[in-house]
């Protein structure tokens, strides 16, 4: 059996996995933060739209969302032709970012709710303005509360990247499947598992470190 070839294919597949993961993460985190702030703002229509967006993203399967964005959007009346994505990667990233931003938004919202009202009051009587209060007082505390859930979601994202198979992107799992089919062995799946374990261990370690750093003891 060609172990080296197998390993090379898996490595190539994990490249796609890593790209989808990193790009989604970089885009979904800030977007999620913006959504959280939007949901808390006083402008009712924005709040309603964002809550609806979260409702859709959480209430439907991510696999279906990826599928719909790549294959479904072009069929929309009028705007359809402008929404035709030729790049599978682009479609995947849009789907993942929109989906994960919704989850991140809810995690951040929980973090914000956990910050005591007294913190806002203390900041106010010390003369801090809104921006200073949020960035210097509230967000660091929100972040600390959000960390364990963020870690969870991050690890889930690593594994969820395997859903890109629905638009045939050739990620890690896809690579394993191809080798398995070609060589009639389930060995690649075991290797694949080890690859995923390694990929999820990295964020797990980073988040443990972050939690320690932000324990404020």
């Amino acid at each position, binding site marked *: 059996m060609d172990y080296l070839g197998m390993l090379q294919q898996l490595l190539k597949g994990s490249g796609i996995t890593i790209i989808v993961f990193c790009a989604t993460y970089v885009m979904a985190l800030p977007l999620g933060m913006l959504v959280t702030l939007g949901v808390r703002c006083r402008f009712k229509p924005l709040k309603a739209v964002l809550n609806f967006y979260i409702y859709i993203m959480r209430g439907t399967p991510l696999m279906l969302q990826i599928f719909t964005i790549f294959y479904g959007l072009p069929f929309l009346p009028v705007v359809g032709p402008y929404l035709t994505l030729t790049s599978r990667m682009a479609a995947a990233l849009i789907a993942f970012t929109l989906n994960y931003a919704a989850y991140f938004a809810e995690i951040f919202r929980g973090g914000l709710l956990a910050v*005591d009202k*007294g*913190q806002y*009051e*203390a900041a*106010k*009587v*010390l*003369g*801090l303005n809104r921006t*200073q209060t949020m960035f*210097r*007082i509230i967000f*660091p*505390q929100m972040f*600390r509360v959000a960390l364990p859930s963020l870690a969870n979601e991050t690890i889930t994202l690593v594994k969820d990247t395997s859903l890109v198979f629905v638009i045939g992107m050739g990620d890690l799992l896809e690579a394993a499947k191809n080798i398995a089919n070609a060589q009639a062995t389930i060995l690649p799946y075991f290797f694949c598992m080890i690859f995923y374990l390694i990929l999820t261990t990295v964020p797990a370690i980073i988040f443990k470190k972050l939690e320690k750093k*932000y324990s*404020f*003891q």
Partner: protein
Amino acid sequence: MKMVQIKDMKKSFDVEVLKGITLDVHQGDVLAVIGSSGSGKSTMLRCLIDLEKVDSGTVIIEGDPLVQDGVYVSQGEIQKLILKMGMVFQHFNLFPHLTVRQNLELAPKLVKQQDPKTIRENAQKYLSKVGMLSKADVFPASLSGGQKQRVAIARALMMNPDIMLFDEPTSALDPELTGEVLETIRQLAEENMTMIVVTHEMGFAREVANRVVFMDGGVILEEGTPDEVFGNPKCDRTREFLTTVLK
């Protein structure tokens, strides 16, 4: 000089909690506000520093109105008036993600934009004043309640306020820790700081305050020197309250 003037201040949440408060606080006054829970003491204090908005009435801080007949001045003016006062909360409200020193230095840096050297010196000064210099670099989580409250007092003093507001500063503390906090407040009183102290510590009110206000059901029922209010209360309700709490 009148530091705080309150005229016919009213405030409702679901029910009316302040039913027309009129009160003057002079320079150097140490005013103790006593009364049972729900009498409106804390709400009154919070209205002075804009943590609650009054429904009607007037609040004047050092001659400048915060709210005149129910109409608030501009946000900029409010901000200036807030900075004339320091506030100490029942639950300390220290910033848990900052060390003791950072808690003190944040507002002078961001709001007053003082130079780092002055800020550092002031932090040393106020931390040693409240006896917390040795804990300057720890996080609030590792402090006792009394220590937290002393840090909170130092943090408020960093902004160099003319008036200090204390909202039940010892109510969340274990009984054996109230002493150190009250001692710090007593020290401030000796330095002629103008203070309004909402408190359940009758002994403290009696010894340290030069004026005592008894609030009940959203009104000021009695006002006078500690000897007058504690020694010879005019209202039956005051007498009843004092008998209960001093028992």
